[in-house]
């Protein structure tokens, strides 16, 4: 008889890290397919490029750090996919690769690798590209255009030309924008999926969306040119951010109370940037900003022990 001796418990759930990552990817699938439909080859190249760059840099960095080389947890694949989905379709291949490498190297491994990073790697990659290639990252192309006609995103139209996009187009995704953020409907479907299978906690998306909704209602009262509640909820990277970026377990609070604080904080900063800054969109910076507050939020929102 060869008996194993371990600490209790002697049962464990089937869920593991790669399952979580794969489920998030399943949640992203509708938006990804839609991106390929809208932007064709460009989308496929961008996605494959980002994922490959992320995986290769992950392997190299793990090798340099003399750590076991684990790709099976799918975290690098997910970071690559997320980055691709928040880049404009016209992003050049070298920029996308560079962004992916930066996301894995600086976004993740500088802090100690999987689970130790403070900021969302995909957003770090995009923030880096925003600084390195500002023109490229703010030039969008019209959906379904063969000649890659440039077009402005709905948020940029509102801010710089006071033009309002139809809510119907926003909802079904017939607008210019980053790869994966055009169709609100498909993002909501994917987002609800990861909430239903309990991969992400509902508290952050709910509080984030409610906060933006409330602020946009107030903003619309002051000036109809600010755009109404539907415009703000459905445009830009809000749904992508709320469902897939602000729910990244590693960089968001671990306490239930903390998750509400995180979501509300993101919502406030998003609307502040949309209303008062020189940028049309602020989801990326808001989430990165709140990521930095996560340790502090965790510290002050620790639950009281039962009976304590």
């Amino acid at each position, binding site marked *: 008889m060869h008996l194993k001796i*371990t600490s209790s*418990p002697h*049962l*464990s759930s089937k869920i593991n890290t790669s399952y979580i990552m794969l489920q998030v990817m399943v949640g992203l699938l509708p938006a990804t397919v839609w991106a390929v439909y809208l932007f064709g080859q460009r989308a496929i190249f961008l996605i494959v490029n980002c994922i490959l760059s992320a995986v290769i840099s992950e392997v190299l960095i793990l090798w340099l750090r003399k750590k076991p080389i684990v790709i099976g947890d799918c975290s690098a694949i997910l970071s690559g996919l997320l980055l691709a989905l928040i880049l404009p379709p016209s992003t050049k291949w070298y920029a996308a690769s560079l962004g992916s490498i930066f996301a894995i190297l600086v976004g993740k491994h500088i802090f100690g690798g999987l689970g130790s990073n403070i900021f969302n790697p995909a957003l770090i990659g995009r923030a880096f590209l925003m600084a390195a290639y500002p023109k490229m990252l703010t030039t969008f192309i019209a959906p379904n255009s063969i000649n890659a006609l440039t077009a402005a995103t709905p948020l940029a139209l509102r801010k710089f030309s006071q033009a309002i996009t139809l809510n119907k187009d926003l909802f079904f995704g017939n607008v210019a924008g980053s790869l994966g953020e055009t169709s609100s409907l498909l993002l909501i479907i994917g987002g609800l999926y990861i909430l239903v299978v309990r991969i992400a906690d509902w508290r952050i998306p709910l509080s984030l969306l409610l906060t933006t909704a409330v602020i946009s209602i107030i903003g619309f009262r002051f000036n109809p040119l600010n755009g109404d509640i539907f415009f703000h909820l459905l445009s830009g990277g809000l749904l992508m951010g709320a469902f897939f970026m602000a729910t990244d377990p590693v960089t968001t609070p671990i*306490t239930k109370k903390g998750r509400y604080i995180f979501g509300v904080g993101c919502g406030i900063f998003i609307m502040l940037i949309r209303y008062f800054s020189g940028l049309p969109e602020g989801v990326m910076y808001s989430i990165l900003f709140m990521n930095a507050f996560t340790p502090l939020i965790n510290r002050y929102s620790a639950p009281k*022990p*039962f009976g*304590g």
Partner: protein
Amino acid sequence: MILVAEHKKPQHDLRAEKYLNPKKLYVPLAQHTGAQSVSCVKRGDVVKEGDLIAKKGGFVSADIHAPCGGKIVNIDRWFHPNLKRSPAIVIQCDGSKKEYSLRAGIKDLKKEKLLEIIANSGIVGLGGAAFPTHIKLSPPKPIDTLIINGCECEPYLATDYRLMMENLEEIFKGIEIISKLINPKEFIFAIEENKHEAVKKINLLINTKKFKLPKARSVILKSIYPQGGEKQLIYAALQRKVPSGKLPFDAGCLVHNVATAFAIYEAVYFDKPLIERLVCFCGDALVSPKNIWVKTGTLLSELFEAKILEFKTDPKKIVCGGPMMGVNLDCLDYPILKGSGGFLFLNRPVVDLRETPCIRCARCVDTCPMNLLPLEYAKLVKKEQYEFLADFHISDCIECGCCSYGCPAKIPIVQYIKIGKKYAPKNN
């Protein structure tokens, strides 16, 4: 709190069998919480069933009686599930039997006399912690609610359920004695909803009003783990929180296991000390699971030698207790203690031991029944920063195992917590 696959079939529906004529017994002196008992026999003595063989070793301690008649052949260190090794009295049984007869005038017994009988019968809490019952039955504060715990939330085990199905009247007689002793205003029979057959029987008995009980009711709780944990049970049944570091009587209630109530009944009605108990043997490595009445001190190996239990395949893991909180055994030479409710023999590798980095998903935080932050314990213990553990209230942890169970990174959080508790500086 978590939902765990129950694995209660088929042992749930198997009638209890008996194995009460062992050849040899190894009776450990440490079978309860508190001071170890002191042996009062020596090698070569001949004892009869039920004779006192070890006395209380302190205030919080319990007597131990000879489970069978026979000759004391040795008093030496032997295997012990929780302590690894501990002194044990070895009895070579002679096969003699003792007949127990009904005590006369039970209704007229005074409180003090009842408590004395219980204290002299070596009864301990049979839910797992094995706390001496006579101490629990003389609480320093008034008790308004008595809760009888029939939850058995650990997967696999079916001991309490079988006892309720087969000996419910006796359990109620035991409860009658407990309520006479502590005089509560209300009595609650708490049970999980997956035991509907038992629930029917309990409600029937409560409604007959045959027993002298205070205002009685049954509370049917959700089948989630750890519903049967004392503090979780009190909250679920009464919405009362036991303060951190305090005991149930601080919240005005007292929780007893159904098996303890049964042991009290036997002690008071038949003057029979706690020398045998119902144990559930299950797991996929056995040919068939069984619920068996055995004498305390019987070795697992003897049950296999006597072909009471048989292996289908070689087990990979043997667990004393339930799968969530039990301890692993490294051979079959361990004795059954007063507090052992079950033994598992598992064949398939049930726990993945490859630990990966924590992704801070906070599943452990969401499921912790004590509202703690288990991931922080694992992190701090790995870094050997034991001095910060108290800031995260490590002493409140009940080691239920919910955190490790659900961890996607397969971090053995409970193991880290056990290490942490050992090294955390004690603060008062």
